[in-house]
């Protein structure tokens, strides 16, 4: 399998040139991955600034820097941008696009044109969402609950259309990945030798293709109701607002697994490479991804325990919800056991992976409080929920994304970053993160509702702590961003296999040539055979 002799093929950056056209009309999955990466990082930056505005406003009860109406618009935009333009596409569209074909030993995805189209849909959807900023923005919350979203007088339809286009873009990516995994695996790459990142992307794609149309239709129905005045969700016209919630969560609950599964896939890669150890429980992890994908369709009602839904329905949804805990727990235990007898290297990606295990475990365990009926009645729609989903969505998905970004950065750009500053960023991130969200768990338990511009004075101390934490977290992220940007100018050139990984992407040069490999690819062992196959760590020094 090894092809350490490179036959001098130019990298994909050099091959196609660097004209605007070479980027905007490219069909190369790697370039599309980079296009996505740049757009998604820009949106992450913007939505992150909005988060800091929110936290700053909450430093004092009442008005600190903005009035209630501005605040409501900002938290809506923060949520909608983070969910639809950052967290959902972050891993599949950037790391997935770049790496999935390479890890399969393929030249490209199955439908390169569809792939490019998905980026254009993404951009169109994103631009629409941002346009609403000019028109006064939207104040419905990213959940668009009816009938508020039907009655409020602002540009809801534009945001809905934006979310609809972003949904299309994610369906395109999903379709592409499913077909690519089935059809374009290299000789010898059996299902049992697929890297777990591929399994995770595969499970994700299935959910994307099955669930996204439902939310697309739901959002269109809200739009139709606003424009044509058909009573679907608005009770004043004979509609049913709770029906909206059913439709919405039927997509949006599976969507949280669309978000987290790819991050779990990244974890399996990063941990095995930086612990130089076969994954513990390969089949359990692969199967648990599929199990999560299946169960995720049956639990949407746990967002609605106090919506007036029947108690029996509540009980069934609560019961099913707890089943998701099992495959999730299996993964966490398996990653932890993978470290046992490993050759652990605490490089930046590994630090993010450890951050992931700790933060995501907290996110998962606090989900138990919300899955249980009686405690959810108290905690629903409080800061406890806010903290819980930030631990899973940010502590999980974005931490996983950062782990993957640092892990594959040398492969994608051909540059090594400063290990020391990468590590400092990861540690600040961890400290800031917990300081931001632990106070929110406490506030939520004490009864501080979410989406509150004003609050009772007794919560101020915790809000101040949380805001300070968010600044530390921001500094950590800026350091990390600085580290990777700096590497582009000043970084040393990366060897093909800096960490000594065994999956196919490490067998080609960094960055890879246009068609990914320098010769024919054949797979002769599993992705994590570190106990039998030795690959040299070409970058050895570890500064932790």
């Amino acid at each position: 399998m090894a092809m350490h002799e490179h036959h001098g093929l130019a990298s994909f950056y050099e091959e196609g040139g660097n004209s605007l056209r070479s980027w905007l009309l490219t069909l190369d999955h790697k370039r599309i991955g980079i296009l996505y990466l740049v757009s998604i990082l820009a949106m992450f930056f913007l939505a992150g600034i909005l988060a800091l505005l929110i936290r700053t406003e909450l430093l004092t009860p009442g008005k600190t820097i903005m009035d209630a109406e501005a605040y409501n618009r900002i938290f809506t935009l923060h949520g909608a941008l983070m969910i639809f333009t950052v967290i959902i596409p972050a891993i599949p569209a950037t790391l997935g696009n770049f790496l999935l074909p390479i890890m399969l030993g393929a030249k490209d995805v199955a439908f390169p044109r569809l792939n490019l189209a998905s980026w254009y849909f993404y951009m169109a959807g994103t631009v629409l969402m941002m346009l609403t900023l000019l028109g006064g923005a939207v104040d419905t919350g990213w959940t668009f609950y009816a009938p508020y979203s039907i009655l409020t007088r602002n540009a809801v339809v534009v945001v809905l259309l934006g979310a609809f286009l972003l949904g299309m873009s994610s369906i395109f990516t999903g379709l592409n990945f499913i077909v690519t995994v089935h059809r374009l695996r290299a000789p010898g790459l059996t299902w049992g030798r697929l890297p777990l990142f591929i399994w995770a992307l595969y499970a994700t794609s299935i959910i994307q293709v099955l669930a996204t149309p439902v939310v697309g239709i739901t959002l269109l129905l809200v739009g139709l109701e606003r424009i044509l005045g058909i009573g679907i969700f608005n009770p004043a016209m004979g509609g049913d607002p709770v029906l909206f919630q059913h439709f919405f969560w039927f997509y949006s609950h599976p969507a949280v697994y669309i978000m987290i599964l790819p991050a779990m896939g990244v974890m399996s890669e990063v941990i095995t490479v930086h612990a130089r150890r076969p994954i513990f429980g390969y089949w359990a992890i692969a199967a648990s991804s599929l199990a999560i994908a299946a169960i995720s369709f049956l639990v949407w009602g746990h967002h609605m325990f106090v919506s007036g839904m029947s108690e029996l329905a509540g009980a069934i949804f609560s019961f099913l919800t707890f089943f998701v805990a099992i495959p999730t727990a299996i993964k966490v235990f398996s990653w932890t056991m993978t470290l046992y007898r490993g050759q652990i290297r605490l490089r930046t990606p590994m630090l993010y992976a450890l951050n992931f295990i700790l933060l995501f475990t907290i996110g998962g365990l606090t989900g138990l409080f919300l899955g249980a009926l009686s405690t959810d009645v108290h905690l629903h729609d409080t800061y406890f929920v806010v903290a819980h989903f930030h631990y899973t969505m940010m502590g999980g998905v974005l931490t996983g994304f950062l782990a993957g970004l640092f892990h594959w950065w040398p492969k994608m750009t051909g540059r090594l970053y400063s290990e020391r500053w990468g590590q400092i960023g990861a540690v600040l991130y961890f400290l800031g993160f917990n300081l931001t969200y632990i106070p929110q768990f406490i506030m939520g338990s004490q009864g501080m509702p979410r989406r509150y511009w004003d609050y009772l004075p007794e919560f101020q101390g915790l809000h101040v702590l949380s805001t300070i934490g968010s600044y530390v977290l921001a500094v950590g992220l800026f350091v990390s961003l600085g580290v990777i940007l700096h590497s582009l100018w000043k970084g040393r050139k990366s060897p093909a296999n800096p960490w000594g990984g065994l999956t196919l992407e490490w067998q080609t040069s960094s960055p890879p040539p246009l068609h990914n490999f320098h010769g024919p690819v054949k797979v002769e062992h599993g992705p994590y055979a570190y106990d039998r196959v030795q690959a040299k760590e070409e970058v050895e020094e570890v500064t932790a």
Partner: protein
Amino acid sequence: MLPEAASSYAPAVDRVFWVIFGLSAFFFLLIVAFLVYFVLRYRNNREVLPAFESVHLEIAWTVIPFVLVIGIFYLGWKAFVIQRAVPEQAFELQVNARQWLWEFRTPDGQVSVNRVVIPADTPVKVILSSSDVIHSFYVPAFRMKMDAVPGRYTYAWFEAKPGTYTVLCAEYCGAAHSRMLATLEVVPKEEYEKRKQPSAVPAAATSRDPVAWGRELYETKGCNACHSLDGTPGVGPSLKGLFGHEVRLQDGRVVKADENYIRRSILDPTADVVEGFNPVMPPFAGLLSEEEINALIAFIKSLQ
């Protein structure tokens, strides 16, 4: 972590909370312990150690969490049944939510806004409705929350110790969502019976200083959610310096803010919508007595 437990079922809910908390803390610390140990022990290890696989371990960490989560589900369900099962013959409190205040109606026909007195140690059934969007009736001290959904009734119940408790709106409902608070005054039964005597309130009212009373009403009837007293506009215009000045209306008319204008603004706000504001003020017709309207006008007059 949890606020005071003031309803009959709050301790049952709290027990579930602490059981989950204990289990979670145990598993979290277990994982942390293993992580820390492995990282310290195998950091920078350069030796390939023998493979390790264990089906027993995998079965154990599948089956044990499985049993535990079913246990948690059961505990959660058991307390939920109590939260949902309204005792027979409960005191019925009708609550209507609207942007952005709570209207209460007790069985003896008393109507009030954002403040209600109810008897202690009595099961109270809260029947919720909404005039506009979804709100959620949340009393942290009771561990009680239920959405108020337009077009249907939902319900919840509690039996509380005497005390004063805050009601919050927990479902996002627009500009003044975070100001949509109400006060539940839970008083011993005997005191409740005494207060119910209707003669008490008006007699006291007429003898009170109308400006002070108006200020109190400004807070208890929820005007403060939308109107400031210091000149800064909120959801609605500030009431400071309103009286006696000209007001520009949306339809282009300019009117003088006299007693009649203010009265109309309170009882039928859409009749004269102030320029630059949305017609979102709820009509207070039927919710304020004649004396209360007079007191509010006196109070607004005093804000020069």
